[in-house]
């Protein structure tokens, strides 16, 4: 089996058994990136020297037998995580010249675990998008069909893992940005409970919604990576101070008696027939594993997209005010005065979608409109959260499609923001409530991957991973590699 067909768990085993060194493994992936990424555009920055340096250190630790479980395994980071000494662009011209002077907690934890960073992955600009087409560095292509999008905003992460240009990646999810690209690229993606993973050093889009998580080949890999990423961070006031379980120990628990809720709203109009069929089959598979299924209702989830497009833009309009051309980032040439400096630096540094969202958010918070938009959205958010609360009184997990369609064509939706926003119709409610959610490969429709979404109650990541892992023990969708990238 070629090295790049292996999962994180298998690569870790191979390193432990000295079948190959971290340097060999890292070089293998660097070669693949050099060979394939011109086609895919999944990396913004590749860091070969740094990677090989880290690999040598990891090999030294292996010799001394002081290495952690994932020591020496390569990984790539979404370019939203500040990485000391490395360009951290957030997919934006605004930060094209930004060499981060400090390191995000997520990156630091990965480094401490001995993971080797191959580079920084492409993404929608400031994580605003569902197709990776808003990146300043150009769109990323879906390895399953190069004329299609990989999803977004963690599009580079998904395409990179799908094409095996990295065995796993980090992502962030504000409205579906881990789960939707995972679904569109046949991967396992996990958005943890809000507060489970530190946001320190992760460039903020919408602070009350953003959460980092792994994008991997399998649920087992996601468990391994979440073990490293999760945990309390005193630098993040919204980080949760509760112990992190070992997510790998419960992967094999039985699903006998598992109660699955199927929200009728997730199977209504708008859902592609091919996707619906794949999801139905996946549910059938779960019944075979001993689960029972009940129909539930999340009535207010219908309003999650409207509420989200007030809350997320409102927060982003404020979060992105710091990009003003004064202390870091893009500054326009020859500003006439202070106002010109602000307006042109921001006007030229941000792309159209970012500007749209800043303006919507600015409007929603402005005098006279706050109550009608922002406050109203916060109230709808409470209702959405209440829907889930009630549902989880009777079910253990909620399942449904991750995305209403499979990967769409590049350019197909980029001119119409609304159709783009509706990509996240099933994922957004989870962020509004702060719940953990996953997407796992569930099959194909017309040759394109379909993701099954699994939503859990607060801090039940272990349960989600268990539910995903048992399914992956009896299916092989997750093992499929896009043709041409084997």
């Amino acid at each position, binding site marked *: 089996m070629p090295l790049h067909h292996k999962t994180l768990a298998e690569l870790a085993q191979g390193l432990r058994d000295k079948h190959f060194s971290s340097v060999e493994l890292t070089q293998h992936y660097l070669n693949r990136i050099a060979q394939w990424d011109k086609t895919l555009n999944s990396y913004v920055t590749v860091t070969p020297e740094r990677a090989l340096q880290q690999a040598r250190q990891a090999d030294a630790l292996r010799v001394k037998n002081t290495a952690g479980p994932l020591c020496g395994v390569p990984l790539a980071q979404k370019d939203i995580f500040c990485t000391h000494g490395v360009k951290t662009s957030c997919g934006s011209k605004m930060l094209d*010249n*930004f060499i981060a*002077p400090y390191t995000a907690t997520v990156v630091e934890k990965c480094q401490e675990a001995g993971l080797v960073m191959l580079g920084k992955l492409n993404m929608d600009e400031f994580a605003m998008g569902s197709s990776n087409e808003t990146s300043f560095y150009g769109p990323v292509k879906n390895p399953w069909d190069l004329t299609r999008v990989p999803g977004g905003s963690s599009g580079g992460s998904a395409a990179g893992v799908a094409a095996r240009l990295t065995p796993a990646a980090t992502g962030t999810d504000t409205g579906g940005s881990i789960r939707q690209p995972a679904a569109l690229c046949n991967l396992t993606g996990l958005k943890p409970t*809000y*507060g489970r993973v530190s946001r320190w050093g992760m460039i903020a889009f919408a602070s*009350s*919604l953003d959460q980092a998580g792994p994008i991997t080949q399998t649920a087992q890999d996601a468990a391994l990576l979440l073990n490293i990423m999760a945990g309390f961070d*005193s630098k993040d*006031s*919204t980080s949760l*101070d509760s112990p992190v379980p070992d997510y790998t120990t419960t992967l094999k628990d039985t699903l006998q008696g598992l109660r699955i809720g199927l929200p009728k709203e997730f199977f209504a109009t708008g859902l592609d027939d091919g996707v619906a069929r794949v999801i139905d089959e996946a549910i059938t598979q779960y019944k075979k594993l001993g689960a029972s299924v009940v129909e539930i209702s999340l009535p*207010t989830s219908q*309003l999650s997209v*409207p*509420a989200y*497009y*007030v809350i997320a833009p409102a927060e982003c309009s404020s979060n992105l005010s710091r990009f*003003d*051309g*004064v*202390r*870091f*980032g893009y*500054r326009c040439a020859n*500003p*006439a*005065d*202070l*106002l*010109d*400096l602000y*307006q042109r630096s*921001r006007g*030229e540094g*941000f792309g159209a979608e970012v*500007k*749209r969202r*800043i*303006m*919507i958010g*600015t*409007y929603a918070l*402005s005098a006279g409109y706050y109550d009608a938009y922002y*406050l*109203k*959205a*916060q*109230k*709808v*958010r*409470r*209702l959405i*959260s209440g829907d889930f609360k009630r549902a989880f009184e009777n079910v253990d997990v909620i399942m449904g499609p991750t995305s209403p369609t499979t990967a769409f064509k590049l350019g197909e939706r980029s001119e119409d*923001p*609304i159709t783009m926003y509706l990509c996240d119709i099933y994922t957004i409610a989870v962020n*509004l*409530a*702060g*719940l953990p959610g996953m997407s796992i490969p569930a099959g194909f429709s017309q040759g394109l991957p379909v993701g099954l979404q699994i939503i859990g109650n*607060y801090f039940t990541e272990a349960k989600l991973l268990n539910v995903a892992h048992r399914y992956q023990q009896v299916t092989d969708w997750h093992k499929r590699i896009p043709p041409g990238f084997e």
Partner: protein
Amino acid sequence: MTLDAETVKKIARLARLKIDDQAIAGYSKNLTNILQLVEQMNAVSTDQVEPMAHPLDASQRLREDRVTEVNQREQFQSVAPQVQDGLYLVPKVIE
């Protein structure tokens, strides 16, 4: 709610975004569409509902009053567009 060209300009100014004149109409159309999508919220009554600013029902953690940061001016200013004598420079501000 329709966001006409004047309103778009006003918001752009408030957000300090330079928008080219020929792009205003496009923004006006897209932003109006987004607002119409957003206004679907009005379908549900929220009179007695407490706004939810945060997903977790937790309270603010406090840090001890200790100086933990050292001077990193050189490093921080290495990414700055324009500095002189340790100061960030901007076009003249008139009070």
